[in-house]
């Protein structure tokens, strides 16, 4: 029995131990077979045992149990010629299924060839089992650890009545053919049949075929299946690695490292000199070499390859990557299939990346939309915008501590956060921003003052540690398409929320009186005022609206990020970038900006997933350069309002 087949046997044994607890029905057919062939069971021969195994397997579950025990070396023969299945301390009679005690059987130890035959017979009987669950189990265990015997059994088994199981079996058979079929042509056919598949099992089946090792030789080895030749000093093989390869194949002496040289010199100091060179001068590498040469000449240290010898040895050899698989046609086909799989895999990764980027973009959009409104209408940068986001998140947290039901608390928290930050925005407008009209830089600084005050107040009230804002159960988990593509539900929810707000914003701007007045004030405040619109009230309303949306964004962000007093700060710079890149005063500009920044940061991140800091750095650099070409954003404001 191969080591890998053990789980299958153990599984079978467990099932059968359970069965044997029931009153055992005697199996006369099995008893007859055993009685006729006991000698061969005791000393089986690989060449002749086949028919016997088939006979036993044909007798039913008891026969299968016997085979399983036989293959697992847990079948024993007593002195009175009875076969016992031994499972730990429990012994049962193989023919009758009755428990036996007090016996001391000799364990049978069939050789590996016989056990291979038994196993494939077992699998064959199992995959033609009438119980579908049993067949599925058999396929599972073969998929975990398939062997050449399994392949044979699969090929000989009758077709499965269940089409789904049959499909699985076909796939398994193809995979096993790739790994274990002795005939290269059928292996290649199997590889090509699955070519382009991105399943993990197929990629796992290909990998062992493409395993390579490196060899160094003076000339090209004729018999080996060479993947490629390597040039020492190239990207794939550094000169040091090449030398290590030579050393490993005993083609070169160990090199003398500076540390080894220093140590052996230090070991041979005599009268303040080493090999005639004064110790004080040994700070010079040349002097060290002289001293070592002297020691070498005196025979006190072992000769070692000097740098030039090592380099010469490296250049005197050629280096090859050799496939472990000898047949080059198979490796070619495997490589083509792998390339194909990788191509489709990267396409799928691209889709996954796109989903990630989309969700990031919707977060940025939510965070920036309020900022864009206030900036577009009033030319005012609200540095406290991030703190409004933070306020929204804390509102969500407080609501959750008051209302235990997560879904209900979320439903309450969203409008509540809007109300709280709307009020805060209106207060900020009435008290500060109104008095700083037409002084954008002063507004920036004043709102910054508000921002530090709010942040510190949040710190004093809620403490510095992160507060949890737990999403309801239906928002947890992820939507998974396949091995590669998946997206967490919460991000989908945020995307939907962003879409909702886009719709709401468009509705307010294009279909309501308020929107009409806002657009009028944006385009020409003076003319709007003379038409009876109160620009001050409009500005206040817009500011409140923008802040309110920030609050809702805060709840959304709080659901997947930690709620701290610095929450807003983490998003404020990105929000600014979104507005600046998109262009002010235009919701589509904000959308485009958020999309660009979202996609860009994900794409840059995918080049080096471990280093998100570098990704952010490059993204900001990109934006700085982008501003060079479109100083007014992707969708610039036109007309009279642009010059204001």
């Amino acid at each position, binding site marked *: 029995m191969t080591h890998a087949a053990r789980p299958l046997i153990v599984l079978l044994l467990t099932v059968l131990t359970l069965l044997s607890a029931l009153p055992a029905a005697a199996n006369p057919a099995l008893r007859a077979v055993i009685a006729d062939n006991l000698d061969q069971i005791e000393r089986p021969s690989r060449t002749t045992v086949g028919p016997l195994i088939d006979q036993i397997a044909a007798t039913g579950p008891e026969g299968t149990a016997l085979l399983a025990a036989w293959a697992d070396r847990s079948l024993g023969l007593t002195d009175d010629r009875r076969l016992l299945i031994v499972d730990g301390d429990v012994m049962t009679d193989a023919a009758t299924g009755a428990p036996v005690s007090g016996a001391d059987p000799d364990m049978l130890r069939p050789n590996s060839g016989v056990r291979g035959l038994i196993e494939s017979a077992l699998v064959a009987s199992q995959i033609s089992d009438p119980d579908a669950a049993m067949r599925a189990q058999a396929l599972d265990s073969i998929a975990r650890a398939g062997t050449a015997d399994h392949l044979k059994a699969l090929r000989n088994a009758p077709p499965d009545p269940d089409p789904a199981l049959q499909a699985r079996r076909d796939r398994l058979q193809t995979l096993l053919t790739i790994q274990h079929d002795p005939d290269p042509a059928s292996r290649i056919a199997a590889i090509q049949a699955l070519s382009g598949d991105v399943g993990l099992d197929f990629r796992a089946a290909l990998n062992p075929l493409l395993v390579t090792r490196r060899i160094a030789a003076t000339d090209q080895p004729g018999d080996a299946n060479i993947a490629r030749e390597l040039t020492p000093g190239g990207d794939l093989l550094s000169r040091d690695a090449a030398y290590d390869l030579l050393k490993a194949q005993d083609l070169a002496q160990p090199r003398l490292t500076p540390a080894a040289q220093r140590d052996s010199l230090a070991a041979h100091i005599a009268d303040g000199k080493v090999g005639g060179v004064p110790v004080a001068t040994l700070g010079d590498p040349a002097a060290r070499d002289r001293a070592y040469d002297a020691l070498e000449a005196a025979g006190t240290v072992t000769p070692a390859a000097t740098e030039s010898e090592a380099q010469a040895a490296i250049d005197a050899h050629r280096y090859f990557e050799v496939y472990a698989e000898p047949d080059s046609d198979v490796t070619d086909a495997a490589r083509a299939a792998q390339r194909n799989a990788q191509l489709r895999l990267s396409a799928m990764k691209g889709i996954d990346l796109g989903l990630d980027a989309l969700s990031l973009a919707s977060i940025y959009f939510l965070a920036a939309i309020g900022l864009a409104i206030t900036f577009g209408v009033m030319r005012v940068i609200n540095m406290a915008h991030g703190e409004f986001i933070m306020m929204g998140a804390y509102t969500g947290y407080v609501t959750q501590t008051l209302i235990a039901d997560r879904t209900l608390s979320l439903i309450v928290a969203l409008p509540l956060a809007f109300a709280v930050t709307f009020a805060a925005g209106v207060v900020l407008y009435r008290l500060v921003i109104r008095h700083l009209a037409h002084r954008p830089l002063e507004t920036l*600084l004043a709102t*910054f003052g508000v921002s530090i005050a709010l942040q510190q107040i949040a710190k004093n009230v809620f403490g510095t540690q992160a507060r949890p804002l737990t999403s309801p159960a239906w928002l947890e988990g992820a939507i998974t398409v396949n091995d590669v593509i998946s997206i967490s539900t919460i991000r989908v929810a945020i995307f939907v929320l962003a879409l909702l707000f886009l719709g709401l914003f468009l509705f307010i701007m294009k279909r309501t009186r308020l929107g009409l007045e806002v657009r009028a004030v944006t385009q020409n405040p003076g003319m709007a005022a003379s038409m009876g619109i109160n620009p001050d009230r409009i500005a206040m309303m817009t500011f409140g609206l923008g802040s309110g949306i920030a609050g809702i964004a805060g709840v959304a962000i709080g659901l997947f990020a930690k709620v701290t007093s610095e929450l807003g700060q983490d998003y404020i710079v990105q929000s600014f*970038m979104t507005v*600046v890149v998109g262009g002010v005063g235009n919701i589509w500009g904000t959308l485009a900006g958020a999309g660009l920044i979202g996609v860009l940061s994900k794409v840059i991140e995918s080049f080096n997933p471990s280093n998100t*800091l570098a990704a952010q750095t490059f993204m900001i650099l990109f*934006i700085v350069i982008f501003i060079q070409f479109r*100083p007014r954003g992707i969708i610039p404001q036109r007309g009279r309002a642009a010059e204001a």
Partner: protein
Amino acid sequence: MQRKPFILQNPSTLIVLAGLAVFTVAVTALSQAYGTGALPTSMVKVLGKTLCLALAAVAMDLVWGYLGILSLGQMAFFALGGYMIGQWLMYARTEAIVAASMANNAIPPTPLELQEGVANQIFGVVGSADLPLVWSFAHSLPLQMLLVLAVPGLLALVFGWLAFRSRVNGVYLSILTQAMTLALALWLFQNDSGFRGNNGLSGLQNIPGLDTVSQARLSVWFLWASAVALGLGYLLAAWVVSGKFGSVIRAIRDDETRVRFLGYPVEGFKLVVFTLAAMITAIAGALYYPQAGIINPAELAPIASIYLAVWVAIGGRGRLYGAVIGAVVVSLLSSWFTGGRAPDLSLPFYTIKWVDWWLVALGLSFVLVTLFAPRGIAGLFDWLGRAVSPRRQGRDLGPDHGALQEQEAKA
């Protein structure tokens, strides 16, 4: 027409320099190393650092108060200056330590071994043992001092050229400078950027070669150096903003388009002032961080640059002495309040701990200053100046206060 000497044109410069000199002498006289010892060494360091911050504020005022660019990236230049000098401080000190420990070895070390030992010592903390390329000049004090000026200057030049060329203005420019600072901070935060990631450079208070000098003395020396730098920087800034050049940059602040139509190369003027301010800020940083002892990327947080703007705004924009006053007053107040030395304020219903509430007070006072006293503390001096009625001679020749029409009429 005879031009008045520079000092007479700017009497405030003389007052500031005199005040600075008096301050320096007084601190020296009260220090532990050279005087009565009334001021502890840590306090001398705080004062020395404050002078550096004041110098940075002067540069900020040059950019914001006179040129009209609210740069939120000044701390990037400040920290870069600190990093550049920190490289030498750290390298030279580590080299001395490594050389001392290697001297015990049986065989004297080769230069390569010495360098490897130093690199191991400095970069072991970020899991690297090679000296990054950016440390190529770290062994040499003069080269690093040159880099203190060159690196921030070059950054400001390139960034400014890109930004001014595409006519990025107002809040856009502010946000862009903030983004630049953030990008630099994020880059420095990486372990493989070569500046030890978020560990930053440390042990900078120990000056290589001056091991025998006590910190008490060193702190006074640095105070002197900071005072000299502030004095020279102030003079330079005052000289730049006086005369015709100063008039042009103020004109750019007030109406850039008009100045451009008058034929002035607006971008060139902006670039010169921006780069000069960056270099002054870098010198301030290079003097600040040896007194602070440690520098890490957190120093570049966008908020730090905004504090600088806060100081200048509270002190009074468009007046160099305002920047100095603002930086000194606010940063000293800050360290007093956040240091836990300020007494708690007991209200009937709540006790205000200043450690917690100082930032709130600062933020709100900042709003109040912006709303009600846009000229800051320096506005107070203006108000005092107006109390004495000006000696008017001749007629009012034109609508603009700054016009030289009267003198031109005489000539």
